[in-house]
């Protein structure tokens, strides 16, 4: 079973794989792109680029802080510097470097965190990036993108490299359903409505967009028409789409594979409370560390599945 299956979506590649393939492809066209790796390129998928362009690739060893500042140094020489690690090691270990070397001087560094969320499974909580979005969003001027499928990830990677300035891209380890046709439109900061509905809007990103689609499919059976918004960019947030959803559906449920505090839910709630206050509910990891286990088992245990979304929708519909 995978998210999106109930909605008739086909299973595609993991977003980390799509990022890696796109990076290698774009690397051929963009000689200014360089990669700095902290010895996990075969996990984060910068490896294909590094193999294709060894002269533009630098593995600095297991040293995320140095990786980020070296990337910033390269960026200050006009390079588009991509660095990556597991989301939690990148954001947590190298946060000061992301703040001082990258965000403060507005360096053209693209930092990519793989292994996001609890769905990485068996490796356990030390490896799970569930606070990364909150940390990234706290950095002034940094854009934060959480793509939901392989096609969108490829488009997001291209958009990220074309954009000048610091960007955090969050990718996942597991295979995810294909939501978009090849060549789909992608704009940083512009949410995508995957399904229209008038009773409630489910706003999700990453892995949970497929789950939101399945929840909407399920809700339709009981006569609830749910709109689904893929909020792939958390910063800058698409206020217009949120306001429209609040006005037109009067209820919002925010779904993410992240802690409760400081992620998509917090950002959407800030917009809603300031513009069109409506009842809201949240589906997320809450305020805890997870544990080792099989990915689906974990998602079910920690309430990140279509059933949990359906329950959240019912809680706001009353």
């Amino acid at each position: 079973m995978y998210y999106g299956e109930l909605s008739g979506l086909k299973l595609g590649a993991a977003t980390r794989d799509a990022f890696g393939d796109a990076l290698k492809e774009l690397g051929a066209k963009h000689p200014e792109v360089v990669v700095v790796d902290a010895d996990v390129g075969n996990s984060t998928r910068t490896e294909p680029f590094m193999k294709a362009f060894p002269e533009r690739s630098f593995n600095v060893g297991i040293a995320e802080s140095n990786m980020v500042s070296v990337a910033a140094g390269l960026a200050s020489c006009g390079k588009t510097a991509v660095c990556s690690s597991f989301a939690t090691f990148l954001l947590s270990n190298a946060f000061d470097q992301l703040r001082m070397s990258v965000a403060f001087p507005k360096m053209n560094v693209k930092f990519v965190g793989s292994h996001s969320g609890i769905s990485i499974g068996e490796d356990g909580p030390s490896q799970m990036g569930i606070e990364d979005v909150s940390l990234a969003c706290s950095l002034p001027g940094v854009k934060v993108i959480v793509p939901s499928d392989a096609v969108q990830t490829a488009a997001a990677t291209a958009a990220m490299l074309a954009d000048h300035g610091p960007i955090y891209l969050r990718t996942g380890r597991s295979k995810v359903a294909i939501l978009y046709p090849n060549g789909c439109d992608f704009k940083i900061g512009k949410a995508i409505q995957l399904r229209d509905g008038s009773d409630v809007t489910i706003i999700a990103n990453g892995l949970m967009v497929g789950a939101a689609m399945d929840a909407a499919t399920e809700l339709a059976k009981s006569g609830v028409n749910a709109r689904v918004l893929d909020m792939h960019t958390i910063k800058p947030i698409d206020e217009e789409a949120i306001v429209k959803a609040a006005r037109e559906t009067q209820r919002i449920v925010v779904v993410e594979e992240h802690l409760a505090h400081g992620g998509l839910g917090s950002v959407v709630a800030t917009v809603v409370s300031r513009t069109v206050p409506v009842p809201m509910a949240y589906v997320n990891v809450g305020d805890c560390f997870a544990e080792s286990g099989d990915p689906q088992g974990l998602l079910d245990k920690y309430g990140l599945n279509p059933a949990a979304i359906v329950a959240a929708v019912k809680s706001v519909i009353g």
Partner: protein
Amino acid sequence: MAVSIEELKAKAKQLRKHIIRMTTAAGSGHPSSSLSAVEMITALYFGGFMKYRPQEPHWAARDRFILSKGHAVPALYAAMAEAGYFTVEATLSLRKLGSVFEGHPNMLRMPGIEASTGSLGQGLSLGLGQALGMHLDKLDSRVFVMTGDGELDEGQVWEAAAAAGKFKPGNLTVIVDQNGYQQTGATKDVLDMRPIADKFAAFGWHTQTVNGNCQANAVAALTIATNIKDRPTCIISQTQKGFGILPLLEAEGDLNYHGKPLSPALAEKAIAFIDSN
């Protein structure tokens, strides 16, 4: 070398006076941490070791200086003023609201500043990245990074030292301004990182240890470092915090004098002392 040691010494005196004037005018800052670094910064900017264009600060082929011990930025502002990036008078707005002369280097607000620093430990990594970038662009440019000796407590410095040992950028030079003090006391008491040169050497760096407050020594060390092209170079610049006005700081009973400006009266004495020596 076109410039004589005597001329550099005179320039160093100017820098010292600027440092004291701007920090006293600001009412805060780190004059003693700035004063220890003066001879090396003077040699870099005026001894012919760095190519730069004050009227074209982003000139692609320039050499770059990163002040990783960002709290010593008055020394850098003083050198940049003397180099013609801006007037000396302008530096008297140091740390004031609206001034581009911030308390720590901010490259966004001041062209000619090559890295925004102030969170210790990051400058060497930034310099390594820049050295690699210059290499990719086939530029014959060099990066000079100045760290403090207290700053070497930061683990990231050693991540960078190790990585530089791997990539061997021949255009990267680190100057450790070993002034012997950090915020709460002597570096040997707070966290003794010595032997410093041995540590860099173990990572494959060329190393030298010199009297960094001797202008001729500073020039000699930079001459050697800039002629080495096959590996990164490290200069342990043994200095004294507050060098140039040490008897005055001794009379104040504080040879560290960390993070505080001289009072207007003491500043006046200090400037007279510098002029008379």
